[in-house]
């Protein structure tokens, strides 16, 4: 059963032209004119329209966790705010079923000077929920938020973690049919994030809760979402299964970065050689976007040399969550001919990587003679997501953690000489 229909929704804002758009060097007259202009006339004369959302259409099956990704200003928050009825759409229609609870911003609808208990009731009221429902759910709220000892403490004395726990706990306990979460989990500690994500999944499965989850955390998105929507400049750009959309999104982000002016990729080194492409290839040589954890995979680096013969050493840095997982380089320098294309392959064994996102930085060292040394470097040449065999299993977080997850051998036996207690 579909629980949400978004039909051709658009949102237009009138943006007053920013002062930054006035010429940087302005004459005294310009400055005087600007200072004397009444704000109202300035607003009317200079306003320009901005379409935060353009003809967005999609529908959502009940019980789906829908991830919404996109760069800043792509319309993610606007979409959520329209569904939450905070702002009205300019065009289009949204139909839905049941109670909508939104977590659009941390602390929205919380009063710092009131106690946690008062805030729970107040938040319920703001969401249009009778006091009796809040009372019935009070125990669940307090237990999940782990704030039993601080119920009568004003919120201003809460740590940001406690604050977040309370906000999330209140929201999910309001018996929503549709939960709107905007980047909210970015604040909490990892353990709590994990619990929230599991709770969201559990509610989606058991009570048919539909969740719209906006996040920049691609790892979380690909792990908990059933489906991902990629918004680009206010338009639904892609809509599909998380692995594909996330990988494509990350590659696009990389492309944009690489084509941006000022990018110091291989430009200065282009005289000596050029990195043509970096791809992930399966054992049979086919290019793949996201590899399964259970199979070996190659990182393939294609490059070409320029002028003269040289010796090269290729290396990759595997990164995850801003951490260098490892660097691996060819063990020895190998000679290459001039003006030739080469292909370097490095095999990453199965059952080593985690079910998470990785990026690869590539560097190629070119040596001519004994002294001349040049490096071709491409940062974030590749981004990919590793998925597990069974997709995403619910208790992965408890049993497997870390930027790598080698499958290691375990044994358990009785120790004959152990001291028995």
């Amino acid at each position: 059963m579909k629980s949400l229909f978004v039909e051709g929704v658009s949102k237009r804002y009138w943006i007053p032209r920013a002062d930054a758009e006035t010429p940087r060097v302005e004459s005294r007259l310009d400055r005087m004119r600007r200072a004397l202009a009444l704000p109202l006339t300035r607003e009317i004369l200079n306003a320009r329209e901005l379409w935060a959302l353009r003809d967005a259409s999609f529908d959502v099956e009940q019980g789906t966790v829908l991830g919404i990704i996109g760069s800043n200003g792509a319309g993610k928050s606007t979409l959520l705010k329209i569904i939450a009825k905070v702002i009205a759409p300019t065009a289009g229609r949204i139909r839905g079923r049941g109670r909508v609870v939104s977590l659009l911003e941390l602390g929205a609808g919380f009063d710092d000077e009131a106690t946690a208990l008062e805030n729970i009731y107040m938040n319920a009221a703001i969401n249009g929920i009778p006091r009796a429902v809040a009372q019935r759910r009070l125990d669940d709220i307090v237990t999940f938020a782990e704030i039993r000892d601080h119920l009568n403490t004003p919120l201003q004395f809460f740590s940001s973690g406690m604050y977040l726990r309370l906000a999330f706990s209140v929201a999910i306990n309001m018996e929503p049919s549709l939960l709107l979460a905007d980047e909210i989990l970015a604040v909490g500690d990892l353990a709590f994030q994990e619990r929230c994500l599991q709770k969201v999944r559990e509610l989606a499965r058991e009570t048919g809760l539909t969740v719209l989850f906006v996040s920049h955390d691609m790892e979380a998105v690909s792990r908990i979402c059933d489906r991902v929507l990629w918004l680009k400049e206010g338009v639904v750009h892609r809509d599909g299964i998380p692995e594909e959309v996330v990988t494509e999104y990350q590659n696009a982000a990389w492309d944009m970065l690489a084509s941006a002016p000022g990018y110091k990729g291989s430009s200065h080194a282009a005289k000596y050689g050029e990195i043509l492409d970096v791809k992930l290839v399966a054992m049979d040589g086919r290019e793949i976007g996201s590899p399964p954890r259970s199979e070996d995979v190659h990182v393939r680096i294609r490059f070409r040399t320029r002028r003269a013969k040289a010796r090269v050493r290729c290396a990759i840095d595997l990164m995850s969550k801003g951490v260098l997982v490892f660097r691996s380089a060819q063990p020895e320098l190998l000679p290459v001919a001039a003006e030739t294309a080469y292909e370097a392959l490095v095999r990453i064994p199965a059952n080593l990587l985690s079910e998470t996102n990785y990026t690869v930085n590539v560097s190629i060292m070119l040596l001519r003679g004994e002294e001349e040394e040049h490096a071709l470097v491409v940062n974030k040449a590749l981004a990919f997501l590793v998925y597990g065999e069974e997709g995403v299993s619910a208790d992965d977080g408890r049993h497997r953690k870390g930027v790598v997850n080698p499958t290691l051998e375990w044994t358990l036996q009785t120790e004959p000489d152990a001291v028995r207690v």
Partner: protein
Amino acid sequence: MPSVSEAVTADAGLWVIEPRQHSAFARIRELWSYRYLWWYFASITVTQLYRRSALGWLWLVLRVAGPIGLNAIVFGDMLDQAQKVDRVPYFLFFLCGMATWVLFERSLLFITRSVERNRRLVTRVYFPRLILPVSAVAPGLVYLAIILVVLAATIVVFHQRDGVWYVSWTPRLLVSAGAIVASLLFAIAVGLWTSVLQARYRDVRYALRYVTPFWFLLTPVIYPLSEISERYRWLVALNPMAPIVEAFKWGTLGEGIFPTVPAVISLVLVVLTMFTGMWFFNREEAASVDKL
């Protein structure tokens, strides 16, 4: 818990969001389903007036008593028996004038700022926005209550001293109650316009600060309506607050003349402002949120 299941099933229904706003009538029904929120906004508007102060709620009393005491001394030497308006001690006359005026003026001020003050909430959570202006009458009502207590005490004190009940213990008091309701409605009606405009242009509050003292002088609070010469009575008739203030005095003290024609005009104006205000608020609230 019948009320609970009822509210839940009402919520479990289908909903539609469209650019066109719902009718004002549907909005009022929605207000009822959010009734839990009224008390919250009302109480927070009042408690914010003395939060974190050492004197606490005493500030509420001081805020009303201060200006009243000062005005009474300046304009009428409060205990001077020679100063009487229609056989009523001036202080009593003045208190009766202030009751509905303070209710109106304070309410209008708080209503005007209600949407802007809660912009953090308004831009992040949905609830019927109409709750904000309506519940912002709370401080005005508290001030009115304080004035009424002072008024009652004064009546008793004057009775002890003069042996006269200045208050008319007749059904006329119902007219006073009506005047209170009318000034409340008028404050909301005007506030529906000003709160939306204030959300966009902060000029409104500054302008209001400038306008209300003049409005105060154009309203027969510190002088009786009968003092105004016939030539300018029509001007008073255009001010809906004038007959409201006058009606309260007439109902409570039983002195003066009941301004029948201005009262009817006033009521028509109040109703008219209320309906246009509802229309305007309903139409513009969405656009206002974009600009907060």
